[in-house]
């Protein structure tokens, strides 16, 4: 392998900071360094004004009122704040049952588990094999004491887009607070919170070419949704989230979301063409399976399982591209992806899956290189695989009885 860095195809794990975003941030790290909460001098005023301009930019991307945007340290905090904050606030009136989906991000699943430890009950819906939530099964999960439902807009591993309008309408009809994790959605799908029946929505900057360590939570004003603060202190963000506002980070998120709003239509077309090119190239390899629905999906994501290839060997073989096998947050473990398992994929297919995620700086040459690399390496790995040989010989592996060791 050469010394050059691999081709980055892991935009769903994180995106580079757009150079325009970095440029916008730097003045707020140097000359305009005030604490936005300082009311007595211009250092504070300049910072506060920058924070409010950025809030407007974030609101505009999702067609919300700036007063509905609460700054957080990232989508993990937004998810924690939304779920615990709303559950704690509304449990007394409604009850302690929560509905979510087994393919949510860990920040949602772990938060719901924490609430279970506090005495809440949770239903973890299984999605259909295409990764989408069945609306009838969702309705069936509702109980009189269901207080909150949390469903992500775009899945981080397989990129499928849930029907948030339909799910939200069911929640409205049943007086259930509806939270949506949109960390993977901004700049990829149109979000119109004036129309969407959503009460709380989580955002992250670093998945949309902004800096790491900053995010936001949308909290609907009409009808007003209340949340209990999870971080107490100086009473920043109208008491919903205390802590000195990181002006440069907020400015970066605002600029990143402004760029997303202005460029997403054209960018997504370009990315769709690249993804289709990648898909067509990889589907020429035998025994490959796309994970997740292809129609209800962001163009940025392609998740494919390569049968008869061992997952770890595959990752080692394709080091010239930077991709994920499962979500980055869990890739320290060797467990097969829980998302793919929830779709009903076998351990083997889940293990041999690769998430390719395409972004702003991906080129056609990157895609072509990737296709060639995969064709070549998978061919070589399969040459070494006795299972592949048996499959080639027409043996039905599911009927083979393996000797006990």
């Amino acid at each position, binding site marked *: 392998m050469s010394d050059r*860095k691999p081709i*980055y195809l*892991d935009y769903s*794990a*994180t995106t*580079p900071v757009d*150079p325009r975003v*970095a440029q916008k941030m730097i003045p707020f*790290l*140097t000359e305009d*360094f005030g*604490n936005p*909460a*300082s*009311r*007595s*001098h*211009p*250092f*504070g005023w300049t910072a506060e004004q920058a924070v409010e301009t950025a809030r407007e930019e974030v609101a505009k991307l999702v067609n919300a009122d700036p007063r509905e945007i609460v700054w957080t*340290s*990232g989508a993990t*905090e937004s998810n*924690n704040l939304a779920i615990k904050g709303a559950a704690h606030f509304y449990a007394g009136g409604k009850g302690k049952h929560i509905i979510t989906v087994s393919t949510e*991000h*860990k*920040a*949602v699943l*772990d*938060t719901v*588990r*924490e609430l279970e430890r506090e005495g809440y009950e949770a239903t973890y819906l299984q999605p259909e094999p295409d990764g989408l939530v069945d609306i009838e099964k969702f309705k069936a999960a509702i109980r009189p004491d269901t207080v909150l439902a949390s469903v992500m807009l775009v899945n981080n591993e397989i990129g499928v887009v849930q029907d948030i309008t339909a799910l939200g309408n069911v929640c409205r009809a049943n007086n259930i607070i509806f939270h949506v994790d949109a960390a993977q959605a901004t700049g990829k799908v149109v979000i119109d919170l004036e129309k969407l029946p959503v009460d709380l929505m989580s955002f*992250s900057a*670093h998945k949309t070419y902004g800096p*790491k*360590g*900053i995010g936001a939570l949308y909290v609907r004003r009409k009808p007003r949704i209340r949340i209990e603060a*999870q*971080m*107490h*202190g*100086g*009473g920043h963000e109208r008491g919903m989230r*205390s*802590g*000195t*506002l*990181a*002006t*440069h*980070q907020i400015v970066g998120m605002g600029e990143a979301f402004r760029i997303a709003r202005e460029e997403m239509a054209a960018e997504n077309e370009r990315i769709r063409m690249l993804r289709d090119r990648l898909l067509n190239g990889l589907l020429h390899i035998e025994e490959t399976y796309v994970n997740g629905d292809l129609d209800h999906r962001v163009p940025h994501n392609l998740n494919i399982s390569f049968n008869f290839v061992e997952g770890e060997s595959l990752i080692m073989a394709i*080091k010239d591209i*930077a*991709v*994920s096998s499962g979500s*980055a*947050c*869990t*890739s*320290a473990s060797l467990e097969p992806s829980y998302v793919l398992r929830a779709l009903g994929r076998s351990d083997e297919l889940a293990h041999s899956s690769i998430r390719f995620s395409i972004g702003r700086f991906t080129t056609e040459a990157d895609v072509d290189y990737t296709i060639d690399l995969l064709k070549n390496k998978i061919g070589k790995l399969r040459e070494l695989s006795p299972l592949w040989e048996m499959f080639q010989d027409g043996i039905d592996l599911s009927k083979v009885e393996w000797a006990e060791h």
Partner: protein
Amino acid sequence: MNTVYFDHNSTTALNPAVLDAMLPWLQGQHGNATSRHVFGRLGREAVETARKQVATSVGVQASQIVFTSGGTEANNFALKGITANLAASQVLVSAIEHPCVSRAAAALAWHDWQISTLEVNAQGVLDMADATAQLQAQKTGLISVMLANNETGAIQPIAELAALAKAHKALVHTDAVQALGKISLDFTALGVHAMTISSHKIGGPIGIGALVLDKRVDIAPLLHGGGQERGLRSGTENVAGIVGFAKACQLAVETVATRSEYLSGLRDQLETGLRALGVSVFAQQAQRLPNTSFFAVANIDGETLVIALDKAGYAVASGSACSSDSTEPSHVLLAMGVEADLARGAVRVSLGEHNTAAQIAGFLAALKQEVQRLKGLHAVAA
């Protein structure tokens, strides 16, 4: 902007060397520090190197550092996380804590904790007799007292408190946000179980901080999710922020002795001038941070004076920035027994290493002029 910045306890300008350390992580291609490919590994290495630097700065091992989004989160994490794994009893917080400690403590009432206040004396220093009495009177799980007060700069007897707490099997947390970089700081010598530090008070970026933990402390996470920070603080690592924080820590701690001496020289110059103006300086008999002076001019409203000083080109504060929305007199001064009227006159000057003797002289002249003008207005009004 030609305004002289005298509000370093609120936030500080980024040290240029810190910016240089951060910029590579804001530019070019970088991965998620949890990813296993080379982009992720480089981020992971940067985070772990930074963790060692921060740890060294406060005299602990890298595994004792949990990065957070700042001081507020670290304080909330300490109070809520430590009590979550203890049987509910009493939590003691001092009367002069930052709201992110006192309000986090108040929230513990939901989990059946009884919240009691530790009193301070007229110099704004913890009353050890009161602490002893309260510890003897009732089973106490956790005590939280700041190392140095943000308004008066008064340094608290934390090592002494920790020794006392040990005898009563209570855990101790200290908010050291204002102390880091201003006085020498050694976690182990303090004998506490948890300590909060923050980046933006020491020339680092806003939005990053840490909780320093004794290895024996069993703490529950505040943020759940991907399991970063050994499961204690989930969320994608803010690599640029962490790297900047570490650089700021390193620089602040390296030069703490000379900076401290320089700042206390400026502060003494300021307070000599203030005395000549007949101004009362709060907590002046206490051991204080070298950079902080909190004072009031009788019969002049602090907010009015701060605005007048701003027009004259000096950025100072009337209290802590977080509560500067409110017109309530400082809770710190009230706890010290200062009359509410005088407390309303409070102005805080907090100096930084780039401030100069000439700026202090200029400030004293401006203050004298403004005080005379405002007193004149009062006389006319009367």
